[in-house]
């Protein structure tokens, strides 16, 4: 049975005012089913990151609605949105954005700890194994390579088994070997665990490995096709 996990209605985001006004999103609507793997493509400045941030609850849209699991994300107060981010979304950034003072284990378990829950050691060690980080739990981010750091941030995004994982050019800062490794991991999570994924990329070869491609230009969806 197909289950809708994310629905976006008429999303608009305007930065600035007056003559400085930038319409980063201009009436975007679409929905994503559970277990889908969506690639978002488009030229630089077309509004991809903005879209992802509004989906992830880290940037409020100017108008429009985001439903995750049928719940209106921005209807809640700041506290509820924070809890939504903590439990329902996993964000992966191009520049990893790990917390420099926390080690690998702490960075990965951060959302769980923030939630005040006990760390599921089984899941953690499984993730560490899958991400090939076993034995590096105590390392600080600056003791890791770029690929390793990105794997930690993937681990952080997945730790809470969120409804959706959102990745903003996760391979943008990596060489092609490391890039493919990351993509393989993401694909594996999608296949093995049924993890819903939305990934921004401008790398054609990566986009083609997804199940569905949404193209954006000037804040509008210009193409939306299922390839698999």
């Amino acid at each position, binding site marked *: 049975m197909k289950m809708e996990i994310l629905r976006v209605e008429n999303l608009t985001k305007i930065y600035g005012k007056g003559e400085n006004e930038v319409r980063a999103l201009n009436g975007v609507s679409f929905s994503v089913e559970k277990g889908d793997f969506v690639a978002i493509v488009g030229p630089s400045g077309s509004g991809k990151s903005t879209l992802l941030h509004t989906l992830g609850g880290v940037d409020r849209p100017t108008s429009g609605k985001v439903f995750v699991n049928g719940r209106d994300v921005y209807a809640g107060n700041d506290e509820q949105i*924070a809890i939504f981010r903590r439990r329902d979304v996993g964000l992966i950034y191009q520049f990893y*954005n790990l917390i420099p003072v*926390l080690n690998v284990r702490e960075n990965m378990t951060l959302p769980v700890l923030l939630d005040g829950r006990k760390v599921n050691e089984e899941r953690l060690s499984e993730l560490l194994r899958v991400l090939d980080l076993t034995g590096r739990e105590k390392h600080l981010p600056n003791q890791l390579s770029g690929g390793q750091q990105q794997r930690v941030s993937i681990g952080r995004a997945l730790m809470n088994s969120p409804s959706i994982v959102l990745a903003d050019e996760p391979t943008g800062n990596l060489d092609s070997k490391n890039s493919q490794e990351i993509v393989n991991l993401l694909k594996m999570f999608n296949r093995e665990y049924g993890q819903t994924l939305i990934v921004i990329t401008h790398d054609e070869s990566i986009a083609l490995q997804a199940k569905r491609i949404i193209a954006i230009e000037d804040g509008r969806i210009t193409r939306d096709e299922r390839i698999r």
Partner: protein
Amino acid sequence: MSIMNLLTRRTMGMNRVRTIVTIIGIILSTAMFTAVITICTSLYGALREGEIAQSGSFHIHAFSTNRETVAPALEDGRTEYAAFAKDVGYAVIGSENPNKPYLFILAADETFMREMPVHLTSGRMPENSTEVLIPDHLYMNGGVDIPLGETLTLDLGERTSAEFGSLWQNIGYQVGAEELTDTVPVRCTVVGKYARPDFEPYSAPGYTALTVMDGEPDADSAYEVFIRVKNPRKNYVGYSEEHTELYAFGSEDHSGLLQLEGVTRYGNISAAITNFAIILSVLIFAGSVCLIYSAFSISVSERTKQFGLLSSVGATHKQIRRSVLYEACALSAIGIPVGAAAGVGGIALTLYLLRGKFGDLLGSSYMSMHLAVTPACILLAAAIAFVTVLVSAWIPSVRAMRISPIEAIRQSRDIKAKESGTGRPRLAAKLFGAEGLLADKYYSRSRKKYRATIISLAMSVILFVAASGFCLYMTRSAASVDNRPGFDLYYEGVPADEFARIRSAAAAEGDEFAGYSVDFDHVMLYLPDESTTPEYRKYYSAAYGDSVMLNAYAQIRWMDDESFRELIKTNGLDEAAFFDPEHPRAIALNHASVPVYSPDTRENYVFNFLKSGVTSVSAVRVPAAPEGYEEDCVAWSGSVYGEGEITAYYSNDYARMNTLYDEMGRPKGLPTAPVIFEECEIGAMLEYMPVGAFPGSYLSLIYPVSQYRGENTDMSLFLRCGDTLGTIAALTGIMEDAGITVEQNRFFDATESARQMTSIITIIKVFSYGFITLISLISVANVFNTVTTNVALRRRDYAMLRSMGMTARGMNRMSNFECLIYGSRSLLIGLPIAVGVTYLVHLAADGAAHMSFTLPWAAMAIAVVSVFLVVFISMLYSTGKLKKDNPIDALKNENV
């Protein structure tokens, strides 16, 4: 430990310098709060102790009453003690002081001996009614030397005058109009001596000898009763209203002590000290809030990205706030105890180092200042400091949370650049090249970040200058309220031919000396507005309103030539100008500090009489009165001051009895005469009181004694000395060796009156400077904090510039130019406000003493120099750290 706290701890550890500076800020602030509170309690404690040592611990003194009358008070549970003393009688003792011929014997009970100011100087306390203590001033003032152990036979009697009947200690000696009656011979032994007691009125005719009262006070004899009330703050007012029996024969409240023990009916004893504490606390509070606040706002703005990250992985506002709170608590937990200890320790050390001074200044040898620390005070200081920290931590974190997580991660708020303005960049570029241009761009494009630095620098300048001004005015106004003479001691009437010898022998004792002829001249002056200062005219109109009378006087005195030459030398004047017998010239003591009383205020005016450049004043001489009249007044003949002519008015007893006076107070229809003006040339003016000067509302004109044309050539020896009693003894020896008969009552000791004022001035000085130092430290920490952060926040930019090929020299140029911007901007804001605040401080001080407004120039100069110095050093430190950076690391690390 929760993950947030762990994170906070790690972050604090990473930014060790910032954490340490913040802790230092908390330590300094707490130290200052603790110090202010401790010093206030210690000072009040010392004043109270001093007051008790000086005058006793009683609250009410009931005059010669009896046991029966005061019985209700004795039975009241609120009475802490009642001390009894009984007048035994007077005996002639052969004193040199014509107004103090008697020894007065007072029999006191045990409580009196314990609670009243009886300070043994030699021997022991009396144990029965045949043993007495005699006061030191019996010899010092009366010249009667009785050795310890001597047994006296005294004819004790009662003072009686035909007019008033029986007289007691409060009534001065009635020369030629009183006698001792009912005398009985009494034998007693001198077992000890004690310091002049405060319970002996100044004008008392008898030196008070103390003995022990036999048995309990009986019902009907007359006693002096001294009562102390328990917990006076709560009980005193009600107690004194209920026990009217205490006032039956007259009484006196010990208001000095009651004020210090907080009985509100008596107002506040030392408003100066209270104001001082309040103003300092406010300044400290401002300084600490500024420092701690900026330290936190920096740590928060540095952590904004971290907050954004945490927020994006689902940390709630509450969690973030709690982490900030945790940081505040962790820093307080270290800073506050250390600060409190440092504050108490600092004051303890200060008191210890000043211990001799406090002894000398706060009172005589039996008074000192102890450290008074109460847990409540420390808690109060800690609480104030903690609230400061909390508020400082809270506000910036709320600000950081107002932006969306993604904005926080990008720190996009800070990036918003504005197009920069006009001509300045070109100047910057000219002076500092491309780096100057860059620095200027940084400044104009991220004003907000700079603003914190500039505001804290400006704040420091304001605090520093205002505190210095405060210190200046407090010292000046305290000094001015004090109308202390320019001497501690003088001896009147050294024969002129012996004077030089005595003076040089005395000078070997090491203090400051000057002689003045015993004779002096008091002349009326006419001072036209052109030659006087506005401050003088303000004083004159406050003192005399619109009177048409001439009220300005000069006192002409003649100083011994040797001292006069010294005075000339120390002031860099020309000696020849003052010794020409044809052409006498005076040194005018131009400065005065005069209180003007109205029914309920006492305002002090501090002024110079004459404008600088005035070379002579007109003395007004009144022609001799016609037969049958005498001089009445000198006044303007018109209806307002300055109108008509200055005229001498004469009157006689008949006119005075029959009120033949006009509404201006001038005699009507009686003889008048135009006055004669006599020019007095002034060779120099001094604005301080040289040794021997008397304070007063008149202008002092001093000539060398070789210009003296009068008859009485005796001289008085004036001196400044620390230990007046020792000096009196030494001088007595010197003069006796020279064959001069010394009369003890020709010594005038001025130290007693000067005591309290000197102590207050010293205390204000010591603590003002102490606090200025601490405030400066706070300011330095502040600036260091903001400058280093500003540089650290631009780590990436610096790295980029270096990767683009900017040299170390170029970086230095850029940072020098930034220093210039920081310094000049903050001074541009800080100095004018500082001047304004200083003026307000001046106004506050002006309430106590009227004086002209001067800026604390030295402090302002120091502020200017230190601002640049501190900024420069902070900059050097932080850019030095950056230079060690590997630019690529820096670039990689800070990416979003």
